[in-house]
Each structure stands twice: as structure tokens, then as C-alpha cells.
């Protein structure tokens, strides 16, 4: 990761940087990386100027700081946070900065760090493109997250097994900062050079919302109605929308249907899981759940879920009530196949 950053950030040798994008964690990390290198060996207290563009510090003050030579050090770092405001400003307002970027002071490192992607049509952007370095922090796609998490462990000199990485992503979600903090905790928890495995993740990663969603999905797939209702209430109490939970359950039933099809053609438990896009660490539970429903029941369940989906979007009934009705139908022996959905009840 450090090598990637070094490449992306021109080994910290540029006099002007724009760090922007939709992933603040990556931007923050790039700032920290630059800070450590630009101010290395110098007196940080004397050579770091920090501005927040939200406070409208005045472009002149930023340029004034960048033009001041460092004290007893190679370079001065001028760090402007929330720099997106500068790219949204009228041309005249940032003209001094545009001029500075054209001819920056080589003993200063001006870092414009934006918390979102900035307007690439802005004159300031174009000038930095010509004379400085631009780093766009783009969040990894969902399917790349497990590899990203494993990379964070590798950067710390540790190995994270594939199922542990997948479990971590499933448990935490897409929040890179939280994922990185979890990897940090795991490297401390698992002593020595041992690989960080699934067991370690299960012990260290706290019960999270995603984890509870898994528990809801398991409860429904295992036909445990009381538990399914309890998990659903818990999640809605945490602010989850009934529609989102319903969507997750529908996805689960689609996966079960795909898995059942694979099983019918003689696939192993792992192959069934892979065919349905289930992470390896959940393969065993998935295989068990396939057997809980017949093909007819799975199709009926999907139909029942579609009805509940329509009700949630159009009915005046309480969304909790609609979800509860669907959950009870799905968990009932015989499933939704022989039941009459509440939406059809008088």
C-alpha cells in the first residue's frame, strides 16, 4: 500500500497536491502519508500550516504560508482541509492560488485535501493537473473489498485468510475506516506472525448490524419464526427500513433457489455456495438451509416476498406489520406455498 501511495503521490516530491474523491478514509491516509514524509526530520511544529477552507481563511493567507520558507527543515507543509470549497469558488476568488500553483515554491508542499470529488472543470483543477499531482481516492468495489482488507493486513506484515477477509467485510460492510481499524485490532489480537483466521475475526469483531442481518436471514432460512421476528424488530429499532430487510431476505431466497438447482445437478456444498455467490465461510450453513425448503416452497416464498414488497410500497399498513406477516408466512411449515398472504386477507 505504501508503494502504491508512493507511486500515486509522486514520492511526496510534488510542490502541489490535490487529494479528492468519494472515500475520505483514503484521502486522510494520503494526507498522513505526505505529512510523515514532507515533515520527516524537521520541526513539525514550525513547518506545518493547517487551514480549513470551510472557515474561509482567505486564499492570500494560504499563499502567504506556502511562500514562507521552512524553519530548520527541508520543506514546509501547507495543508488545506475541505478544499472542495476552493474549487467551487468563483475564478477571481482563487486567482492568487491558481497563480501560485503555476509557480509553486519548491520548499513548500501545498496539499489541497477535499472530502468529495471536486469539479474537474475548475481552473484550479486544470492548473494542478499541469503543475502538481492529483490523487483521486476511489473506494474499492464491493467485490474488491475482501482483497482490500487482506492488503491492509499485508501492509502490516500479516496474513489474513480469504474466509477471514470475507467474514470481516460481511460483518462490517463498506466503511473503509472501520475495516482498517478492525484489521489493526486483529493484528494486535493474533500474536506473532500467525495468519489471522476466521476464528479470530469471529472473536474480535463486535456484533454488528450486518451480523444481525445475517442472523435474521439465518433465522428465516431455518424457519425459526420467533427469532426472525426478534432480529427484525432489533434491526428496525436500529433504524433499518423494512423494505431493505425484505430485499435482503428476497436475495437470500434467490440464492437458496440457485443453490438448490446446483445441488440437483450433483454439486458439493461448496460448489452450491459458490454458484449462489455465498462466501466460503457460510457454505456449510447454506447447504443446510437449502434442505429446509422444497423448490416449490422457495418459489412461493419469492412470490410472497414480492407481495410484501408491493404492500410496503403502496399499502397504508404499518411496515412492521407487513414485514412480520411475511416472516411468519415464510417460516411456517409448508412455507408460503400453502398460505394466504396477509395482503390478500380481508
Amino acid at each position, binding site marked *: 500500500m505504501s508503494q502504491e501511495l508512493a507511486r500515486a503521490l509522486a514520492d511526496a516530491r510534488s510542490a502541489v497536491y490535490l487529494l479528492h474523491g468519494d472515500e475520505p478514509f483514503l484521502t486522510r491516509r494520503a494526507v498522513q502519508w505526505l505529512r510523515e514524509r514532507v515533515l520527516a526530520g524537521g*520541526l513539525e*511544529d*514550525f*513547518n*506545518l*500550516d*493547517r487551514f480549513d477552507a470551510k472557515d474561509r481563511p482567505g*486564499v*492570500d493567507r494560504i*499563499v*502567504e*504560508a506556502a*511562500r*514562507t*520558507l*521552512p*524553519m*530548520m527543515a527541508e520543506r514546509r507543509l501547507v495543508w488545506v482541509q475541505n478544499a472542495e470549497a476552493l474549487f467551487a469558488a468563483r475564478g477571481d476568488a482563487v486567482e*492568487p492560488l491558481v497563480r*501560485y500553483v503555476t509557480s509553486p*515554491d519548491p*520548499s513548500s508542499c501545498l496539499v489541497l485535501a477535499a472530502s468529495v470529488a471536486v469539479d474537474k472543470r475548475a481552473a484550479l483543477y486544470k492548473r494542478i493537473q499541469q503543475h502538481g499531482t492529483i490523487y483521486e481516492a476511489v473506494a474499492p468495489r464491493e467485490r474488491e473489498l475482501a482483497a482490500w482488507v487482506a492488503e491492509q493486513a499485508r501492509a502490516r506484515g500479516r496474513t489474513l485468510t480469504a474466509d477471514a477477509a470475507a467474514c470481516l467485510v460481511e460483518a462490517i460492510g463498506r466503511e473503509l475506516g472501520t475495516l482498517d481499524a478492525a484489521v489493526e485490532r486483529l493484528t494486535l489480537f493474533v500474536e506473532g506472525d500467525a495468519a489471522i483466521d476466521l476464528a479470530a475475526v469471529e472473536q474480535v469483531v463486535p456484533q454488528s448490524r450486518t451480523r444481525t442481518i445475517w442472523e435474521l436471514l439465518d433465522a428465516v432460512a431455518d424457519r425459526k419464526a420467533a427469532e426472525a421476528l426478534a432480529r427484525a424488530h432489533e434491526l428496525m429499532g436500529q433504524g433499518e427500513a423494512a423494505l431493505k430487510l425484505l430485499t435482503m431476505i428476497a436475495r437470500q431466497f434467490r440464492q437458496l433457489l440457485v443453490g438448490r438447482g446446483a445441488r440437483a445437478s450433483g454439486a458439493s456444498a461448496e460448489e452450491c455456495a459458490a454458484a449462489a455467490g455465498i462466501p466460503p465461510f457460510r457454505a456449510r450453513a447454506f447447504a443446510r438451509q437449502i434442505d429446509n425448503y422444497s423448490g416449490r416452497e422457495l418459489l412461493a416464498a419469492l412470490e410472497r416476498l414480492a407481495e410484501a414488497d408491493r404492500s410496503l410500497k403502496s399499502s397504508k399498513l404499518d411496515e412492521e406489520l407487513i414485514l412480520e406477516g411475511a416472516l411468519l408466512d415464510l417460516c411456517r411449515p409448508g412455507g408460503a406455498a400453502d398460505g394466504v398472504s396477509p395482503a390478500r386477507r380481508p
Partner: protein
Amino acid sequence: MKFVVNRDLFARSLSRLQGVLNRKATLPVLSNALLEARPEGTLRVAATDLDVTFDGRIPARVEAPGRITVDGKRLYDIARSLPGEEVAITVTPEQQIQLKCKNAEFVLLGQGAEAYPTLPSAEGVELTPIDGVALRELIDRTAFSASTDESRPNLNGVYFQCLGEGRVRMVSTDGHRLSQGERDARREKDIPARDGVIIPRKGVGELKRLLDEAGAEVSFGFLENNLVMATGELRLFVRLIDAAFPDYKQVIPKSTQRNVVLERGTFLGSLKRIAILASERTHGVRVELSGERMVLTSDNPDLGKAREELPLDGYTGGDMSIAFNSKYVVEILGVLAGDKVEIALNEALSPGLFREHGNPDYLFVVMPMRL
């Protein structure tokens, strides 16, 4: 609670609190002053913003002791506008504060003192006498360069250190310039050496206010993480910044190759003139040393150019060109008192050292600019 107090003393004691009262605080009671009528015949007038606390006592004829808090700004506005010499104050059981002075009468709504934060006490604190005038001068000549960037708390105040043998030092820096002052501030007894502390900018402002009033007769001490300053019946507590001041000695040039002595007033006048056409972005003014003259220039593509020569008597350091932020140098020349100023330089990219000629107590370091 009932007492009678001299109007002037009362108004003056309330005026001291005005910088401490905080109307925007999350604790609304922090916009109040605490009044405490004591049986021994004193009125305590105090306020805190939890970082700075003023606590004073003035004589009063106390008929019924008690404590109350009340909007400190309103009370001050009323007290200073009252017509007579004495103010009679009565607090009703409903916590209404009645002020009577000659034929004027006011009623203010108070708030119980039990909601007010516990104020620090100087009881048991060892107070050392210190020359308040010397201290005031040190603040005047050093505090201006403290950083205003609140994300850097260790630069957000003035470093205060007792060096031993009565000498005290103050240093401030914002990373672009540094001011250091040192004075013998001994009064009746020695000031023992101790590690430096950082007094926050707001605390320095309140300290100045106290020193203005107290003159030389002040004492100081430390209470946990507070600086305590005392004069007469007045105590000021300033919570110190809990951070390490940078190793500032590293940035003070140990030796210099080029030394120039100039008339302070003449140099200041020239610099201000040349700065008129300096870039508004950087306030940069170029200083060229050549032969026996100094040339100040500024060049602003949007406005024009300026140039002024100053003679240098006996300068032998050789030619050089360096640029400074004129605002910084003007501020330094403004706080110095002597007729002459020394400028000591090495290279164009090395810090410049400014001193009052013949006065080793103060020095100022300014980082040059690249224009």
C-alpha cells in the same frame, strides 16, 4: 442576602469579569457573575469560563450573607450607570436581585449559586512576588507572534519559563516567526527556576488586564494545571495548555555572517512605505544589502513598484538579497522601544534575527519568503 457596596469598586470588579463571561457557552450559567456576601464584611465578585477565572473581593457592609449568580454583563451595565456612591443590594427568596442607588432601582433575575461551577482556590498556593511591569512588557513584546491556529494548541499561547536568579522568559511562535523575551522580574525574593508552561492566548489577555491594574505588585504561583496570579484581593487563575512547547531554541540562529544596525524609526517608516505596493498575497518586501546601503523594494504586477535606499554605516558583510513578510517585521519594529535595531542574517533562505541594538533581552526570528 443583603449588602451595601461602593458603586465604583463594584463596577470595577465587574468590569474585570467581562472578558471571562461567556454568553455562548453550553452552560448558560457561565454568562453569570457570582456574588457572595461574606459575614466578615466582604463581597466576593467572581466569574469563570472554566479556563480562566477571576476571583476578587471588595469591602461591603453585609447585613445578610449569601450567594447568588446573575447575568454579569447586565449587572455591569447597570452598576456603572448608577448615579450614587453606594449601591444597596438585596436578594429576595425568589432570587430576584434588587439594586438601589439614590433614586434608581433595578430588579434582576438571579440564579442559585449551587449551579455555578466550583471555583479554584488559591489557599495553600505558594505565591512568589514578581515584577508586574516587567511581566507586562514581556507579554507586549512576545505574545503577538503566538499562533491563532487552534488545531495547534502547543503554539496557541505564550511559553513562560522561570530561569532562576529572578529571570523569567516568554516565547511565542506561529511557525513563521518567533519572539523571545527575558527579564529580571525579581521583587522581594528570588524566583526559583521551574519548567516552562504554556499560557493560552486568552489567559494572556486577561493577565495583561490584571497587570494593567496591578502595576508591579503581583505574585504568582501554580495550582495543579493553573497559573495563579494575585494582587491585593484579586486572584486570576488561568488553565495552562497541556502540551509540549516545541524546541524553539533550534530555530534561533547561533551565529550570523551579516549584521546591520539601523535607526528603528527610519527603517520602520521605509518598510511601511514600501509595503504599500507589496503583494497583498504575501506582503513580501525584498531587502538587498549592497556595499554600504540597504535597498528595500516591492513589486506588485497589479499595482506597480516601490524602492527605497537606506545608508548602512560600516557594513562589510557582502551583497545579499532576502525577502520578508513586511507585516511580521513591522510588528517587531513596533514592539521594540530603543532607537536602533540590529538585523542579523546568513543566507537568503535562512532565518533573519532582529534585536533591539544593545538590548540582549529580546530577540525575534522571522522566516524569509521566496518571492
